[in-house]
């Protein structure tokens, strides 16, 4: 079983490497098709066509796509994320911001794990009751509300209208957002709102299935106290699926904070992505897409491995 698991993990990592290579190709070629190019992003709308042509030549944009891709991918292997249209190294532009987005994601997950587990198990055990009916419908409705709307309403009601919390997450230069926890509250709440509903619904469903499983029924018939049934019968069946959901959600959150970051002006990578796409700063977009894709891939594999480790599921 151990050797089997190790072989499985190695296999997954091998697949991941192949997928990452494929991803880099898709990202590079796909972003290259986006409107704008580093030359026009660099020179702005006031440049004459002659100046643009000269800049393209200087930046090597007239080289064939394959050659540019190979140079870029080679740089990635050495940890070089490239140079933005305005000449700044991309790694430097993302450095502090990646950390800021990670703070948002980590705090959301920290709250998401206990809350979704509590809510999901509580609803699942009361399946069919009025509490479950109301709770599940509420969750269904919250998943239906887009996150920018949630963020916008929170910013308006708790921020700008009441003045309880800052509606704009202004972090003084040189400080980490953790030094100013008040700027994190509303962004984290908005992210939690959307992810909580999804995770809770999955956990609720798992609890429901576990509660009806033969081993749980056997434990109950043997007169084992309900508390022990929950801890030894239900939770072990629920946790692997829950862990997978939490991992996948955290990967999704890293890339999914974009809208929330825009609404609150939070200095994370989501904002960089939007600015770069709108100004046509393609090297930054390529680096970010690659980074987010790689993180999602890693989280998915981690979820698979967790599933395997407890012998639950295995995707081939």
């Amino acid at each position: 079983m151990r050797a089997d698991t190790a072989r499985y993990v190695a296999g997954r990592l091998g697949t991941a490497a192949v997928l990452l290579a494929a991803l880099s190709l898709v990202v590079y070629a796909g972003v290259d098709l986006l409107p704008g190019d580093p030359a026009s992003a660099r020179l702005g709308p006031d440049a004459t066509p002659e100046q643009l042509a000269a800049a393209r030549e200087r930046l090597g944009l007239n080289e064939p796509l394959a050659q540019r891709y190979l140079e870029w991918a080679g740089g990635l292997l050495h940890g070089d994320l490239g140079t933005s249209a305005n000449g700044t190294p991309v790694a430097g532009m993302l450095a502090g911001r990646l950390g800021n987005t990670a703070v948002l994601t980590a705090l959301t997950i920290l709250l998401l794990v206990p809350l979704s587990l509590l809510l999901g198990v509580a609803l699942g055990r009361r399946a069919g009751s009025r509490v479950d009916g109301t709770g599940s419908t509420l969750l269904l409705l919250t998943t239906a509300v887009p996150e920018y709307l949630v963020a916008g309403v929170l910013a308006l009601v708790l921020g700008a209208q009441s003045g309880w919390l800052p509606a704009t997450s202004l972090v003084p230069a040189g400080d980490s957002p953790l030094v100013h926890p008040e700027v994190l509250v509303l962004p984290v709440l908005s992210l939690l709102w959307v992810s909580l509903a999804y995770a809770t619904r999955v956990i609720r469903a798992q609890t429901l299935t576990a509660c009806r499983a033969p081993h749980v029924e056997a434990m109950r018939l043997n007169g084992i106290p309900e508390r022990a049934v929950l801890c030894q019968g239900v939770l072990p069946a629920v946790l692997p699926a829950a862990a997978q959901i939490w991992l996948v959600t955290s990967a999704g959150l890293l890339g999914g904070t974009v809208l929330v970051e825009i609404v609150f002006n939070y200095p994370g990578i989501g904002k960089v992505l939007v600015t770069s796409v709108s100004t046509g700063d393609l090297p930054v977009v390529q680096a970010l897409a690659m980074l987010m894709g790689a993180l999602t891939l890693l989280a998915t594999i981690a979820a698979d491995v967790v599933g395997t480790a407890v012998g639950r599921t295995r995707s081939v």
Partner: protein
Amino acid sequence: MSPSPAMPSPPVTRRTLLALLGVGAATAAAPALTGCTSDGAAAPTVTGAPTGEPGRGGTARLAFAGAGAAESLDPTVGTSPCDLARYSVVYDTLFFFADGQAKPALATSAEADTEAESCTLALRRGVTWHDGTPFTAADVVHTLAYRASPDRVSPSELAAYFDLAAAEAHGDHTVVIPTRRPVGDPATLLAGAGLYVIKKGTSSFSAGKVVGTGPYRVTAFKAGVETRLERHDDYWDGAGYAEKVVLLSVDDAQARVNAVKDGQADYASDISFTTAKAGPPGTGLQIRDAGKNARTTYGFVLNVGRDLPSDPRVRQAIKLGIDRKALVEAVFLGYGAPANDLFGAGAKYYLDDVPVPGRDVAKAKRLLKEAGATGKPFVVRTAEYETGLNSAAGLFVEQLRGLGLDASLVKVTTAEGYDPAGMKACDAISFPLGPVSLALTYTRSAAFKTLAFPDEELEKAVATALSTTSEADRAEAWAKAQRVMAERGNWVAWGRGDVLSLAKEKLTGIENRESPKYPWLGKVGFVA
């Protein structure tokens, strides 16, 4: 695993749904009840800042749209309002614009020689850098060479007129720049070029090292987040009022408004017309406009390389047939006025007496028919460079259809807006322009083949206006150029919109120089 569905849910009953919808509606209504004040007429705005001497001290926090992680302390890199607001208080230019005219800053005069082969700059004496060293001609020579280097991000428009790299210092306070073609009014060209003077030897721009001659010096900087500035007490034009200035980079207009509303900022630049219409969002706050001369002109440039726009009758028909008032109402919500098809309002030499064309739909339709344009396809291209440009283009297309053209709309992103190949396939292109000098107004659009208006009389007039050293000849040449554009040109500039901001009532000293979107903050402060 059990084959049961992954997510068995209890049925959603009508009763639970209705009950929850009720709760939802109540929640949604809460902000609406307190948020809106009134509809109908535009809420009045205040022009400019309160008068009266501001007190010394305090921290002024101002929010501008920025460029995220791409912002820079290098004044040749940034183009966002937040970047430019920062450059203009940290650095000085040789000349700056005030009331549409070039005024001396680090240079006290710029004289073109009689053969117009070079230009001599006399520099201000007694200016010191933030590190206490004196400002000299060597700094200007370094700035010009730095600007001209091919390694710079963007080429300077000045390079067409001056051989920047060949500039020489004559003594400590004189610089001579060779010209590439006759330059009649070098001060105006230099004022409009965003030429921020950097210190000799500067090659890196990090927060601890950057020095300028401006009224504030940088103490901390984080791209796309904020810039912290402290007063430079030895500023040559008199020290500022606020002890500290904080520039906040906030891209979303609503987020800027929120920052002022909840007390995190004292000023939000460039707010939306909708926000203004709802009135000041709190006590002690006011909505300001930058004044009539600082409005942004919204319009379309007709591509005369295409069949329909090349016909003067079609151009005239469009100018006569569109409903400017409807466009102004719909886009500016009352914060603006119809325009007379000329860009450049607010600049020196702008022709104020050209009337807004009266609407004559019958004549427009007749002209289109005569030109054989009725029923022909007409493509309008737009990108949201300014709030409302796209909706204006949509309305414009509807109005053109009403005149009998088979008009259609192409919406593109701002990154591809001025893509030459894309523009070539369109008959009209959205074009906004702030109150910049006529030299810039007329050279910028002429740089693009698809936007230019090839007309002998116009080209001659613009060339004269740029090269003549005589003030009277220049005024006459600009008048001629503008009459050509008004009479038969390819501009359909339909309206001018206010540039609005939200500010604390006590905040003063916001000065419009180059553009109200990044005002000069050297004298910002609070009145008692």
